């Protein structure tokens, strides 16, 4: 065909003819291709109806078999997860459950790592939301007011309530007597460091103060950048993702503020951040940081840490052990310590996130089946023991902690665990009223990034930020869409009281 086409072209023959041939060729290709796809599509469908259990478990995104519910005569429970570090483990457990359960329930466990929140939002709008899905702060906050998140309290029996009593925290997941999710693990931010690099640079101990941390980072970069090794890294491509796992916690410890919010005065005050941010700017400067932090995502950062190119970084305790064991196996030894503060000064408890919970879709037709499957798979104590022992997450369930032999990694690194210096922080007015709190301009994290990488002056930038946050708060309160939150006698060391 190609030859014939070429010939007519060389002859400069009838243009129309040539075009016709080309069009014919395109159409022929089109037809054969569409036939091919039509056939293979059918085949795919056929296999999924004859053997619905197969593949469903590992499928990260196959919901085309959704329409087969009737023909398979099984109740299908669709679960969306946002986590990758425990995907293999859960996938296997779900597959086992699908094979053995006697309730005729089939769980379709899908992983949405990218755009998780948008996927949930859009799925709700189109009535396609999964039966249950990973609890995530932003998702929970934005959908709470809509009545789309099911109240789990009526489904809990007494046994459940006593086993997971510690997980039900008023103001967090229990609101007005309704319980929306049950966290089983906890996570918070800590400093991770590469012991081999510290040794190579001649640094004996991990930093105890933030000033020391900046100095260590500079020393490592100065000594080892020739080998491509740098002192510190942060996934600043997404400032919120980077700073909510580091600065947010550091500020709770150091200043007793919740993202700038002072619970005693009921006002935002970012101006107190000035000294901290000045050190951060040093830490992220060329003399200390891994090059290109401002365009770095968390996973590429982890690969570089695993490859022994990064001295320190701050991240979540729940994910990292699994990451360096399964996702990006690391040969060098890493350690973990508390996030250092300026001068080692601590005025508040560090917050932790109670996670590992699932939200249930109140509009789901299979709510009961989802609850059943949830109890059999995720709320099974043996499952949680195994999960904890595998180093995939840090349990906050007493029954689990009692029974489990913690993974060696937790024994070696006590700071991975949620300790006595960690506490649950209440939500500030912005978090509690996600949709009603309309902030104009850059949010706090983006503003901090512009101080690190742009020419925003720290002092004036912080004042402006404070003004804008308080203006948004006032506007919401005036309009009646935001409830003011003021706690007289608030003690940052005991924030949940």
């Amino acid at each position, binding site marked *: 065909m190609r030859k014939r086409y070429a010939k007519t072209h060389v002859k400069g023959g009838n*243009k129309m003819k040539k075009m016709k041939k*080309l*069009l014919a060729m395109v159409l022929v290709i*089109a037809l054969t291709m569409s036939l091919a796809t039509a056939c*293979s599509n059918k085949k795919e469908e056929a296999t999924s109806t004859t053997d619905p259990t197969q593949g469903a478990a590992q499928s990260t995104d196959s919901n085309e078999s959704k329409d087969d519910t009737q023909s398979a005569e099984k109740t299908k429970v669709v679960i969306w997860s946002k986590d990758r570090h425990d995907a293999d483990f859960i996938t296997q457990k779900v597959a086992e459950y699908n094979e053995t359960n006697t309730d005729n329930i089939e769980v379709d466990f899908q992983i949405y790592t990218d755009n998780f929140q948008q996927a949930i939002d859009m799925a709700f709008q189109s009535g396609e939301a999964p039966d249950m899905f990973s609890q995530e702060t932003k998702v929970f906050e934005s959908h709470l007011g809509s009545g789309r998140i099911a109240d789990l309290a009526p489904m809990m029996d007494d046994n459940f309530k006593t086993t997971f009593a510690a997980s039900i925290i008023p103001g967090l997941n229990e609101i007005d007597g309704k319980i929306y999710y049950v966290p089983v693990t906890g996570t918070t931010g800590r400093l991770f460091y590469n012991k081999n690099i510290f040794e190579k640079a001649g640094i004996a101990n991990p930093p105890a103060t933030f000033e020391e941390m900046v100095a260590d980072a500079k020393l490592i970069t100065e000594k080892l950048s020739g080998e491509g090794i740098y002192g510190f890294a942060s996934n600043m491509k997404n400032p919120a993702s980077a700073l909510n796992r580091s600065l947010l916690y550091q500020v709770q410890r150091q200043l007793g503020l919740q993202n700038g919010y002072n619970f005693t005065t009921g006002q935002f005050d970012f101006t107190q951040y000035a000294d901290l941010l000045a050190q951060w700017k040093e830490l992220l400067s060329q003399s200390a940081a891994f090059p290109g932090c401002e365009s770095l995502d968390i996973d590429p950062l982890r690969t570089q840490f695993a490859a022994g190119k990064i001295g320190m970084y701050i991240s979540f305790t729940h994910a990292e052990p699994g990451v360096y064991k399964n996702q990006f196996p690391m040969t060098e030894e890493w350690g973990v310590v508390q996030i250092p503060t300026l001068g080692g000064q601590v005025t508040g408890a560090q917050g932790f996130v109670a996670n590992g919970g699932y939200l249930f879709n109140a509009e789901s037709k299979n709510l009961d089946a989802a609850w059943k499957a949830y109890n059999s798979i995720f709320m099974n104590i043996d499952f949680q023991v195994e999960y904890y022992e595998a180093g995939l997450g840090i349990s906050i369930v007493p029954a689990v902690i009692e029974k489990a032999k913690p993974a060696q990694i937790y024994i070696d690194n006590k700071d991975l665990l949620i300790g006595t210096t960690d506490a649950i922080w209440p939500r500030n007015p912005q978090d509690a009223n996600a949709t009603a709190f309309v902030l104009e301009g850059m949010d706090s994290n983006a503003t901090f990034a512009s101080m690190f990488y742009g020419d925003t002056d720290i002092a004036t930038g912080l004042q402006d930020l404070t003004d804008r946050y308080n203006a948004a708060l006032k506007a919401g309160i005036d309009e009646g869409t935001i409830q003011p939150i003021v706690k007289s006698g608030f003690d940052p060391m005991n924030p949940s009281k």
Partner: protein
Amino acid sequence: MKNKIMKTAFSTIVAIFIAVMIVFTVYPILYAVIGSFKTNGELTAGGSFFPEGAWQFGNYFVAFVKAKFIKYTLNSVLISISTMIIAVFTSSLAGYVFARQRFVGKKLIMVLYVGLMFIALGSVTLYPIYSLLMKLGLHKSIVGLILVLTGGQSANVLLVMGFIQSIPKELDEAAIIDGCSPYGIFFRVIRPLIAPIMAVVALFTFRNAWNDYVTTLVMSISMPKLKTLTVAVVQLKYSMNAAAEWHIMLAGASIAIIPILIVYFFANKQFISGLTAGAVKG
């Protein structure tokens, strides 16, 4: 003598300039295609242009099987071809009607077609389109995505209209005398004559659908079964372990690039002439 030296110097400079531009153009493509045969270690080390060890054909196996590219490839093929067929069919009919028929409201409709080509709301239209599909219940099927990617096509319609206007009207009139209906005129007289411009419309809509990222991304956020190759490849940056696996990313990129390169190999003249037709007429 001097003139001759000047001339050789000049043509050398021209040759160098063209060579540089060719390297600039080809290098990223070759990097992707050749890199897809390297090991991850070779790639992340920066290093040599060609694989140092054996060529890793296995990368493609991993991309096709583990990253489910077979499915996304089928989606891409189905979506691009359907979009192409719908676009050719609807825009040629509409272009013909605008060029040859008189009807109530023609002026208004034409003003809208031309006007909306110039109002560039861009990405803001994605959300209302998605919500419209939701109301119609088309957001979960591939049909919805195909229709969205076909779109309003005012540019195509005006292109075809211009082409038909350059065809002598006597041909239609003869057909009318023979008792042909407008449909008859279109299918017997006009359609064979507008084949060249139809080929252009076909190629460009195929290319646009195959390469589209933003629209397909939005439509597939909560419906991953609709993902096309282009979207799936870009998401490799975040999914699975691929953040660390450059060889899989490049294998994916090559799988997305190569089919369109093949189409181009057969039809590069049409692509190029089509572009000019659009520009000069528009």
